[in-house]
């Protein structure tokens, strides 16, 4: 049962990453992140 859940979660993760990349969400971070 746990292995099935893990497989489902991994599939979900892969789909989310693929969708994100398709949307062009692999943005290059260039800021100071509000550190100053």
């Amino acid at each position, binding site marked *: 049962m*746990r*292995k099935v*859940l*893990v497989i489902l*979660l*991994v599939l*979900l*993760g*892969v*789909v*989310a*990453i*693929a*969708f*994100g*990349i398709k*949307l062009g*969400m*692999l*943005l*290059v*971070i*260039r*800021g*100071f*992140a*509000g*550190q*100053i």
Partner: protein
Amino acid sequence: MPKRRVAPYRIGQIIGTVVLNAYILAYIQGKIIYSGFLKSIPEPVLNCYGGPLSVFACPLGSFQQIFGQQGLAFYLRIPWVIIGLVVIIGAFVGRTPCAWVCPFGLWQDLLYKIKVGPQAKGKRWLTFSVIGLIGLVVVALLVVFVKVNLFKALLFGWLPFIVLCLFGALKGKMNLPGRWFLSGTLVGIGLGLFVGWKHDINLGIASGVVALTLFSLASSKVTLLLAVPTGFVISLFGRGVQLGPFAGAELGMLFAIFAFLVVMVFDQWLKISLPATGLKYLFLLLVAGLVAFFTGEPWFCKLCPQGTLEAGIPLVLWDPVQGLRALVSWLFYLKVGILLFVIWAAMLIKRPFCRIVCPIGAVYSIFNRVSLLRLKLNRESCTRCQVCRRVCPTDIEPYEEPNQTDCIRCFECVWKCPRSSLKITLGG
């Protein structure tokens, strides 16, 4: 004398820290921050992407950057790549990156090794003196490079830190505060809203986050003792706003009544409190989530002690573009204060930031109970000797439940168990 063994996860932490912060070209080539292709790849742990040495993108910082983009359709504001990455890692290994990769975990583990308190005997005063001297060196650096007022740096920075360290030297190592009081959270949020309304929204968010953290972990007496006078001071200064017929000191009176009622209702009447380790979910939802969504600013990053250590302080001291120091404002001093507080807490308590604050740890911890890589306890052979708890970097009790949310899968309990009652399994 038995040979001391370096914990395997420590080697992983050191490698992780070096790999994630390997951009030494910043110093050689005079560049401020690396912004090549690798900066688009999220790393699995908290490591500031604004640091001059950082190579990859901090998942939490990137999450807030994407989530905070204004004027886009909602589905475009969801950080799909980061969510997917964290889900995959969590499903396979749970909180393992917190132990084996995270640089801030390494700093906290090392700080906890500092001997303080009565158990350290004479050494505690030597340690106390060394910390005091290091503090003076930091003050000197700030005075020379950032032109901070020496008197203010000593009075508001060095002195409170030394008083906290003196408390640590007398009291020694401690357990994490056990409970999270909802009354403190509400009073803290109320204080933040009050500051935002009377003064400035940025000051309101910053003070609200600090206040809700302190009040959520303190007793109701401490909350009232700190919140009520602060509310009065806030009400006397700032913008001359009115609430119906009330203004000035009357608003302070109203805040005092609000704080008192909240404490009475939630603490005395309803008696609502939760485990303190649950506070990190609030940071995830409120600070990294809602605040970032509505303000468009990465407010967790702005207050993050890891960011101050790896990015804020190095950038201000180094100042490669000869202009960063001019940007230093009250927020920078607040961040340094938060970092000092976390350093102090980490000397006395095992990994306080990971257990109470870290939103990335909060997400991974949800997967701990279902992850493929997990621990298995043989309850028949376990004698509850507590060796596992003593070696655990997050101070959990594996003999109660080995896969609880704060287990960071360092496996020290497995390797140190005298009866081999704990085992590493894959899906078992």
